[in-house]
């Protein structure tokens, strides 16, 4: 398969192409590689929330409590209406809205803004 990082279609300025929407499965996260040292471990976790207007949510993939890049492999759901992913290591919940850990106030993971255009998912700066 072609690597979209090399084979990008018309890219909105300063946005980085991540993957095709078709590569995502509703509710089941995937990991993505990004260049740029501002992303811990240079990995992100990408989630597709289906619905009338499907939404793509991207967090840093590194679970700071478990100490491993695994959030993309967690189960997605909601706690009192807020979309979250449960880390597969010790089941801490991280908000897909603001990245905070619901069980530990002082812990959070980065959240990245995204743009979905023409079937492609972009990370915004």
């Amino acid at each position, binding site marked *: 398969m072609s*690597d*979209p*990082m090399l084979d990008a279609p018309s890219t909105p300025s300063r946005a980085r192409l*991540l*993957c095709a929407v078709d*590569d*995502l*499965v*509703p*509710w*089941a996260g*995937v*990991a*993505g*590689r990004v260049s740029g040292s501002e992303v*811990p*471990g*240079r*990995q992100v976790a*990408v989630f597709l*929330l289906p619905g009338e207007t499907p939404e793509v949510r991207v967090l840093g993939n*590194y679970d700071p409590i*478990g*100490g*491993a*890049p*695994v959030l993309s*492999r*967690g*189960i*997605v*759901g*909601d*706690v*009192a*209406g807020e*979309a*979250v992913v*449960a880390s*597969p*290591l010790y*089941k801490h*919940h991280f908000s897909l809205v603001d990245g905070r850990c619901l069980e530990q106030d002082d812990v959070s993971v980065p959240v990245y803004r995204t743009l979905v255009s023409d079937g492609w998912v972009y990370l915004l700066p």
Partner: protein
Amino acid sequence: MQQWSNDMNILVIGNGMVGHHFVMRLTEQAPQARVTVLGAEPHAAYDRVHLSELFAGRRPEDLMLADPSAYADRGVVAHFGDPAVAIDRRRRRVTTASGAAFAYDKLVLATGSYPFVPPIEGAEGPGRFVYRTIEDLDDIRAAAAGAGTGVVVGGGLLGLECANALKHLGLETHVVEFAPGLMGAQLDQDGSEVLRGRIEALGVQVHTSRATERIDEAGESPLTLAFADGSALGADVVVFSAGIRPQDSLARDAGLECGPRGGIVVDEHCRSSDPDVHAIGECALYDGRIFGLVAPGYRMAEAAAGHLTGSPAPFTGADMSTKLKLLGVDVGAIGDGHGRGEGVLAYTFQDPVRRVYKRLNVSGDGRRLLGAVLVGDCASYDTLLQYYQNALALPEAPESLLIPGSADVGLSGDALPDAATICSCHNVSKGAIVGAIDGGCMSIADVKAATAASTGCGGCAPLLKSLVDGELEARGLEADRSLCEHFDYTRQELFHLCQVEELRTYDELLRRHGRGYGCDICKPTAASILASLWNEHVLDDPHRGLQDTNDRFLANMQKDGTYSVVPRVPAGEITPDKLLVLGRVAKKYDLYTKITGGQRIDLFGARVDQLPSIWRELVEAGFETGHAYGKAVRTVKSCVGSTWCRYGVQDSVGKAIALENRYKGLRSPHKLKFAVSGCARECAEAQSKDIGVIATEHGWNLYVCGNGGMRPRHADLFATDLDDQTLIRYIDRLLMFYVRTADRLQRTSVWLENLDGGLDYLHAVIIDDSLGIAAELESRMAAVVGTYRCEWRATLEDPERLKQFRPFVNGAAGAGTDDGPVFVRERGQKRPATRDERERLRNDPRLVDVTELSS
């Protein structure tokens, strides 16, 4: 009386169940107490009530109550195998057979009883035994080897226990009773007859109204019992079990007051005629009675301990109601079974097909229960006992309590007074349970932990549940059993909904019965239910996002985010060629290798993207997935069995392989572990497994709902001497019943403890098919077994499934990525680096040996 002081020497003669209970109780109340125990038997205290189980595969160790180290930990000095022979009350000394002397300030006699042997000609000599101690059983076992016929003299409770033991030894078993009926002390004549019918159906021959006059040695058999009516019975082994007599000779010789027919006279504090000497258990005579059951003995022990330490707990007699299983037959007797009083109304129920007999003896005004007899069905015992013990007003139509099933729901906890005993095993009152709830207990599990209620025989579980539910509700704390915030249903209810409405996806289930997005509780639960019902591949589109990460990648996530791989090795049997394959694959992918507790080999440290290629090699070599990642059937452990072992009686490996291949892949509320042992030595540790199978001479004994791990539970013996087909049938039914009714992540052990009616109920459902669902459970299992496919083989064959193992949605394989796994080498294998080691390796990510790092 002399005030309690820790300096006092407390001497206890006798280390049976009651003597042991006294020691434990006293040392709980006064941890500094100076206690010495003298025991005539070479062992510490053991559970005499279950003696006959020694012939059903249990070992003497299993019956032990007193762990020698437990005594040592409490500072108790134990002196066993040396009987006390004299009490010198003036000098307060006791001497033993070996000549040792022990001083006391307070003496407690717990000398128990001895078996009564009728004074007939020929009562002693070879082949004639009593039934009381582990040594007696050893003697009987030795004599039974090669013998054909065993006769028990005495048809009471102990006699029937003893008959059970002889039957287990493979003897043609006879019971001879002097009175017209079996268990005459507890049962009325009709009840005796039904019991007799059931026991004879088991192949035990019963002879009632037979007075044994003498035992002759001249005749065709080694021994011949001659009866008063002129008839005779040949035997190889004769066991006397014709009642007990209090062991009071020490006390009598010491001049303590004893009853005319034996027994040391005691008051409500179990004090004898000498205020420094107490007597408890079967050697003590209170109010002219000997109490020959263990529960009253325990109450006496508590009375004596309480009196000594200044917190009196007077013994004022005990209810002799009892419920037990004799030769597999349920028998219950409450109060006066014969209905002897004036104007007593008797209600009876007989079911000649199921061979059930029940009788209620009710006061003339129909208001109070005076006694009851239950044979063949004890389901209503606990309810009836509450009516009897608490003198509760009976329903308008008392006969309604006799109808099968009615009494199960007949009585609710709030009808009872605070003093009512809920759990007779641990003597827990309703007041204590209400107190525990006041103290913050919020569930049945909390209450059990706080009070020990319902942790003995479990017979009071339904009543406890009704009481706790009622109390919580009264406080506005109704137990919320919803699975999570997305479903107002229990797992059992969701299972039912999926089955009845034939729901095949989580989305449908959520749309119809739930709300929100779901979560990491309800999604895997639903995934498990759907897999148990329809057995579709867990990685297929609608199911993939529901799985916990282990199921989603068909491997076990470790602390660093890598996975371990466990191929199935049924029963732990593996060819050298397959071992070489495992070694080759582990070496090629540099996987840390360890033998598991389930007789398999675990390969650690694989990245997600390596899993398919590792498995391709394993599948090609003939391995299948081991489901180590799933809440599913894991392993069937086995010993080597009769094929090689000198002691094995059956092919345990072959049986374990057959079981593992049958049930592999079954998804369940929690993991399931099995084991099969080839003989009673039990090297496979089957009694700590969810399903344990132990070979016998005649077939297989099935144990269920055991557990190791954090919360060990000894499995319950469920059925004995099963043939191959029946064994499979029971396991099919039991597993499917568990899959259908258990809570999420509830192991079989906890499931059973929470099952209303406990083991008896499970028996009824699985063996007697009381719910009429056995056929359906079997066909559900057949469907799962019939649709089994190795999940890894199926994954490798499908590119869509394989795609999910790409490490990154936008790139190829992942080694060398920042924050990918970092390993170091230790003891010749790799392992995840610690955080500290990762820091040190940040600039030099080679795989180094830890010894290099520490330098």
